[in-house]
């Protein structure tokens, strides 16, 4: 059975809980409701043989409501099928942990919590994975400056503000196209 057939099967089982299905160059993406996310992933794991979690990541649609979006990349062990499942998450919502389905989800979810600040319910050990416990910000959020913010935890770690000097790494939000958002992309006259 192909991933496309699995998507049809998910549609039959979950009906309106599946918001949207997309196919792009053979990649199947399913956008689902957050409330049914765990049930849908459990079906993929248990009935459709997606034994492997490749990645869990998150997006920050700053300014939109709901603000965040979870992205799950799952695959079968023989690598014959890939499926991407997305669910929108509001700022005060919790995402059900999938560590009960895939043990490998543990660290991915910790990274999402650490970098984006999306909390998970039912995670066995939800603490920061890259930054230290007590660091007050979530650095991958769009409203966090690239240069960082000063913090200090005595005997643990401190952070400062990196000098960017309007340098090549600075992008300005809101430009119409990439050339305007990204100074490096501008044509040299």
């Amino acid at each position, binding site marked *: 059975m192909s991933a496309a057939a699995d998507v049809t099967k998910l549609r039959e089982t979950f009906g309106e809980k599946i918001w949207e299905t997309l196919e792009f160059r053979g990649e199947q993406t399913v956008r689902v409701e957050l409330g049914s996310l765990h049930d849908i992933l459990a079906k993929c794991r248990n009935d459709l043989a997606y034994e492997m979690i490749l990645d869990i990541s998150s997006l920050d649609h700053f300014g939109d409501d709901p603000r965040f979006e979870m992205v799950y990349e799952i695959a079968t062990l023989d690598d014959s099928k890939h499926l991407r499942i997305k669910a929108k998450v509001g700022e005060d919502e919790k995402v059900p942990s999938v560590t009960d389905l895939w043990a490998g989800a543990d660290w991915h979810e910790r990274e999402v919590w650490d970098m984006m600040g999306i909390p998970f319910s039912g995670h066995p050990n939800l603490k920061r994975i*890259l*930054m*230290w416990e007590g660091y007050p*910000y979530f*650095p991958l959020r769009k409203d*966090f*400056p*690239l*240069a*960082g*913010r000063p913090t200090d935890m005595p*005997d*643990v*770690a*401190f*952070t*400062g503000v*990196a*000098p*960017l000097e309007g*340098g090549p*790494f600075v992008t300005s939000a809101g430009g119409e196209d990439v050339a305007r958002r990204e100074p490096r992309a501008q044509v040299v006259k």
Partner: protein
Amino acid sequence: MVSPSPSTLHTAYDSKIEGNVIITRVDAAINWMRKNSLWPMPMGLACCAIELMATASSRFDISRFGMEVMRFSPRQADVLIVSGTVTYKMALAVKRVWDQMPEPKWCIAMGACASSGGMYRSYAVLQGIDKLIPVDVYISGCPPRPEALIEGLMKLQTKIEGEHSTMDQKRTFIDEIA
């Protein structure tokens, strides 16, 4: 020199010893000993550490300069080579290693990241190890080639040659007893 047996030991002036005597300043003698047996503490944090390893191995061979005794205990080392990106999470650990090294000690910031944060203008990276510990030699490059590291170490040797540690100690001592 073979030491004479007690029976032949005499207290008279031995003209043979003259050729074995060097007259110099204490500082110069100490500096000469220090600079020719630098024991580096490798603080390998990123790709610079790979070049550091190459420097120590046969092709580049820093034992030609008396620096091959890499010590992984800071208590036995006297030059800290910070090779790589110092993240804020690692920063205080590097400081702690530095604090554990006995005096006299020197520090080399190897590569762009250790010197200034390099390309990581970011919330996560310390913008130069000199914000935490004093640096004697900065080596440019991303990563620097082993030749560059060797030149940096030789620059450090030149620096050590010009130090006045006992002279300064003597001056402080004389000031104190005056």
